[in-house]
């Protein structure tokens, strides 16, 4: 069986300053516990404009306009640096402004749960009509909009969750049930955001890579929310709902959950489904989380810097049959943190990094790039969480030293040569391993690198069902150009050539 390949990817960000204030859990919790706090008063002054968010170097990296190598040339902190003439559209995706995204929330809403004010709808309709990926069919789903007083009535009397733009209420997300907490307005709001940002990532994947949506057979959605009602809280299925909006009429799908590790779990699942021949084209997709907006806002405000967690993230990756061109997913080089692995950092890194390498008789230095938790250190360092990717690279390098594959004095060079700076927003699953898949594909097709290891880790204990941690990894490798078909054909050709030679040889005897 031939390995599957990574055929394309899409990466999107959405600038959501009002959602930072009204939907991020750090802020909603503060409003309950300490409504008059200095933090809540100061926070609005620390929000960035859309243009500042677009020109922010890590964000330009996320959508593929600059490479991680280029990003590392910028001296930290990055929040006071700008990419000149930064474009909202990039090689892999885009950075969408909040108003257009609110319009998209209405577009993806098939149960009439999102209500938007009339004039807002007409403004945003004009903007979305100019968006290259939003078709007329999608625009029509915006409808006409409603009167503001009706929206206010929903908020005041029926517990609808307000939608803000530029500090004003311009709509609401209505509850889908009057008793069921899994269908209340808060949950529906979060779920529609996941669906809309996931759909935007899918649209970018399809468009940027010229993929026919009808060719998609299966979709795996791997964000961190759950949709369902009181009888099945995580019933699902974001995957199929995203496929429906984006025209994947031949696809079905399912949701995979595993905290931040879910995208890498999903990548391995997709690779296995394609390699087994079950499906030809599988998309792994995830939308973003409003809850995590402004998660470290208190530290950012305290340090008098902008609140950098002002974007939702989304991504989509297409895994397809081996085409002899795109990089393969080595399902024989998979690492996993098992129930019995243990929780020490050493045990974790061994299970995720060196166990799969040992299967292929490889050294730590044989992998060109490691894509770990690619959290942007501009966000995490001021919050006291350090530089997450660098810590991971140091741990991988240190294990290399222990395995005598690396001199101790080479540790920092290892971090530099086999690592990268983090550029992904701290949206849990979004930074986990997958942000590099797009760059890795390009670098392998161009012959710049041969291999990368995609590593996802997840904090399962947050769900209180187990104290365990989790993680999986898979090696992505440059395609050697041999597909199963070409290998088969060449074997057949050789047989024919041998047969012909035998006949020619035999005929010489008969001639004599």
């Amino acid at each position: 069986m031939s390995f599957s390949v990574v055929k394309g990817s899409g990466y999107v960000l959405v600038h959501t300053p009002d959602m930072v204030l009204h939907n991020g859990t750090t802020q909603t919790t503060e409003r309950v516990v300490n409504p008059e706090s200095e933090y809540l008063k100061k926070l609005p002054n620390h929000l960035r404009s859309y243009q500042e968010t677009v020109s922010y170097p890590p964000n330009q990296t996320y959508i593929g306009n600059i490479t991680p190598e280029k990003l590392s040339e910028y001296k930290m902190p990055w929040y006071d640096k700008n990419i000149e003439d930064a474009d909202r559209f990039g090689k892999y995706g885009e950075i969408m402004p909040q108003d257009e995204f609110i319009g998209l929330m209405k577009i993806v809403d098939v149960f009439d749960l999102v209500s938007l004010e009339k004039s807002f709808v007409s403004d945003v309709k004009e903007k979305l009509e100019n968006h290259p990926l939003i078709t007329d069919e999608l625009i029509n789903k915006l409808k006409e909009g409603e009167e503001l007083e009706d929206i206010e009535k929903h908020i005041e009397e029926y517990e609808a969750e307000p939608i803000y733009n530029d500090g004003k209420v311009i709509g609401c997300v209505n509850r889908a049930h009057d008793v069921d907490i899994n269908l209340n307005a808060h949950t529906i709001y979060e779920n529609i955001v996941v669906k809309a940002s996931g759909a935007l990532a899918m649209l970018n994947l399809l468009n940027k890579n010229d993929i026919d949506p009808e060719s998609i057979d299966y979709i795996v959605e791997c964000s961190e929310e759950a949709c369902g009602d009181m009888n099945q809280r995580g019933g699902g299925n974001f995957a199929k709902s995203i496929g429906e909006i984006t025209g994947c009429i031949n696809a079905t799908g399912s949701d995979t959950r595993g905290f931040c590790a879910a995208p890498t779990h999903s990548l391995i699942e997709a690779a296995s489904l394609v390699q087994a021949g079950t499906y030809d084209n599988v998309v792994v997709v995830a939308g973003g989380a409003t809850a995590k907006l402004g998660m470290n806002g208190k530290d950012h405000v305290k340090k008098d810097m902008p609140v950098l967690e002002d974007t939702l993230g989304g991504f989509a990756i297409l895994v397809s049959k081996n085409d002899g061109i795109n990089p393969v997913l080595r399902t024989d080089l998979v690492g996993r943190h098992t129930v019995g692995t243990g929780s020490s950092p050493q045990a974790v890194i061994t299970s995720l990094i060196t166990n799969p390498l040992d299967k292929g008789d490889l050294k730590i230095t044989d992998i060109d790039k490691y894509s770990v938790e690619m959290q942007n250190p501009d966000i995490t360092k001021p919050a006291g969480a350090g530089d997450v990717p660098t810590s991971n690279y140091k741990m991988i390098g240190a294990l290399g030293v222990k395995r005598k594959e690396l001199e101790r004095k080479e540790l920092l060079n290892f971090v530099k040569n086999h690592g990268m700076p983090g550029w992904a927003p701290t949206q849990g699953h979004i930074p986990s391993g997958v942000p590099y898949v797009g760059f890795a594909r390009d670098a392998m097709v161009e012959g710049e690198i041969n291999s990368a290891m995609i590593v996802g880790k997840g904090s399962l204990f947050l769900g209180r069902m187990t104290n365990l941690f989790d993680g999986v990894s898979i090696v992505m490798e440059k395609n050697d150009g041999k597909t199963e078909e070409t290998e088969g054909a060449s074997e057949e050709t050789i047989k024919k050539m041998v047969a012909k030679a035998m006949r020619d040889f035999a005929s010489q005897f008969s001639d004599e």
Partner: protein
Amino acid sequence: MDLENQRRVKDLTDKHGAENVIVVLGAAEGEAAGLAAETVTAGDPTFAGPLAGVQLGLRVYHAVEPEFKDEVDADVYDEQIGMMEMVLDVDEIIEEMTDIREEFCKFDD
């Protein structure tokens, strides 16, 4: 230190007495280790948790400090902590921890 851990430390100290409790930390950097050490000696510096204003003065060490390292089996230490010892800024952690102990620990040993 999160609120749940503060509660655990407080409960264990109430039950066994401060002289019978040692806190071993695994924080990844000096500053975070110092904050946790301060919490279990001088009280929660953020005044948010059960140890706010509670001066337990406990013995507290980081796992990479010699006081802890020399007490455990060298092979087990190497297997569990050897890699992280290479990664962490051990000197910075020891300095931070020593400062906190000298200022706030009730036990002079």
